[in-house]
């Protein structure tokens, strides 16, 4: 059981750290959730793993399950649940206000952030039509996009 719990915590932490380091907010939020799950499981295990034991020290009990980490985990779960809600709302708000869901600030963001920008969608289409005055040719839409991106770069 120890191996199972330890490897579960390890795997979730690894995945969480990896996803927190992504450039866009959705994977970051998922990564944060995974990190908090791993943290909760870890806290749970700090009272030692015990099966079928009473949560109090009794005169006739051979052992006990530490109830304190369980109380801590409850608090941690409530807080992390609330915080996930906050970060989701703020991420959505940032997406709506700045036009893209990249974590970087506008001045220092990668060119992909501008490509993903929904506020520049109109400009992109205008650039597309300017590149092909007769209207978008059905055969080669990719060339137009590449041209528009190239112009901006």
């Amino acid at each position, binding site marked *: 059981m120890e191996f199972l719990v330890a490897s579960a915590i390890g795997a979730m932490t690894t995945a969480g750290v990896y996803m*927190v380091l992504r450039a866009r*907010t959705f994977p*970051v939020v998922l990564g*944060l959730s995974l*990190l*908090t799950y*791993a*943290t*909760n499981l*870890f*806290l749970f*295990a*700090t*009272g*030692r793993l015990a099966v079928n034991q009473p949560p109090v020290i009794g005169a006739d009990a051979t052992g006990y399950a530490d109830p*304190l*980490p369980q109380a*801590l985990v409850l*608090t*941690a779960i409530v*807080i*992390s649940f*609330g*915080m996930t809600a*906050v*970060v989701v709302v*703020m*991420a959505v*708000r*940032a997406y709506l*206000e*700045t*036009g893209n869901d990249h*974590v970087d*600030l*506008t001045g220092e963001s990668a060119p992909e952030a501008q490509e993903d920008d929904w506020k520049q969608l109109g400009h992109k289409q205008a650039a597309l039509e300017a590149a092909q005055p007769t209207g978008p040719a059905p055969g080669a839409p990719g060339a137009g996009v590449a041209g528009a991106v190239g112009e901006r770069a």
Partner: protein
Amino acid sequence: MNHALILPVLLPAVVGALLVLAARHDRVLARVFGVASAVLLLLIAAALLATASDGAIRSYELGAWPAPFGIVLVLDRLSAMMLLLTAVLGLGVLLYAINGWDERGKHFHPLFQFQLMGINGAFLTGDFFNLFVFFEILLIASYGLMVHGGGGLRVKAGVQYVVTNLVGSSVFLIAVGLIYSVTGTLNMADLARKVPHVPAADQALLQAGALMLLLVFAVKAALVPLHFWLPATYTNAPGPVAALFAIMTKVGAYSIIRLYVLAFGADAGEAAWLAAPWLLPAGLASLVIGMTGVLAARSLGQMASFAVIGSMGMLLATVSVFTPQALSAALYYTLHSTLAAGALFLIADLVAERRGALRDRLAPAPRFPQGELIAALFFVAAIAMAGMPPLSGFVGKLLILDGVRDSAHAAWFWALVLSTSLIAIVGFSRGGSIVFWKSHAFESAPQPSRRAGALPFVAVGGLLAGLVAITVFGGPVHAWLNLTAAQLFAPADYIEAVLGIAGGTQ
């Protein structure tokens, strides 16, 4: 049992809830309640400081549960001093904010109260997990305050801030879990009693937990290399909120001082002075990077942010010497740098409010209303922050240079503190002359002010008056801080006050 100990937590909690329920739509009512609460907090903090000045350590058991099992609040000189500092800064910032900033978004006043509640709780608690909870309270309120007023850049910087702190919270919990799994306690005094008896086999777990905790506090205190969140956050936060955040970095510093002197101090056996080898290089690096950042900054807000990083570096490097003399110097510097940073952020906002689209960027622009007065205020705040005579920054630096004299690394301190002071002076004079002086090259007369309230100037002036006060009364303040440091370096008193004379319940 002294029920006054819970008031600094209880009062903002009740007022904050009242403001949400009753004064949501009434601007005047919200302002009156907010300011009244801040004034009351100031009085309570002053009373608690007077109480703590007799040298006794008071503990308050919540729900009358005895100490290692229940949660305690502990009031000693250090807690009382930080409470008073929070109350002074909070009142100043609130007076500034009610001149219009509080109308630019919803729920400014309740969030402000909850923020004060979290900060006060973190300074008072004597329990680790409770420290985590109060950290979360102050962070949750700060997320709301950070994006107050909205705007794309601000919300995006807010997301970065939230993500950084959520990762920090996870690390905090893991560290608390590690320490609990080894010592079986969450009470700081009880931990101090148990750390010396941790068997050698468990030392690795204990020290890993303690150092992860140091990592979390260093994130809060914006120590290099964990400082990256601070400039973006503070620069993009609303001016008064950034000024209030000046105390939040000190919450991290306070936690480091409290924990690593009490539980991992001289009596900790194998884990003695665990934090020192990490804090010293990180602190000195923060000092250099922060003060260089002041020189490289592109706006007044950025300048103040980097000055905060630099002053945190100076503070924590001094703490890492871990002698009573150095600690009292660091505490004096804490008082000074909090007030100076708060004033600088407010001044940056005064400038930003008056220069239209240019905001507080370091670029010449036509003169703006009340420019001379603001320039004078900036001059005073910059002198204090850079550590030039005659203000408290100079006194603080002298105390620090004197306090680390016996340290093995004194040469590093002297060289870096003095050279970074020069860099900071150059940085501040460059910023001040671009913003205030070069504006006289423009022909146009200052435009009439849109709304020239006196309150912002009262707020900034009040914070600067605080700086002058701790300079003028430097002697008594320093004597009091010496007693504080001596109290911190006698952990036995703290343990006895929290756990009772019996001490050993197991």
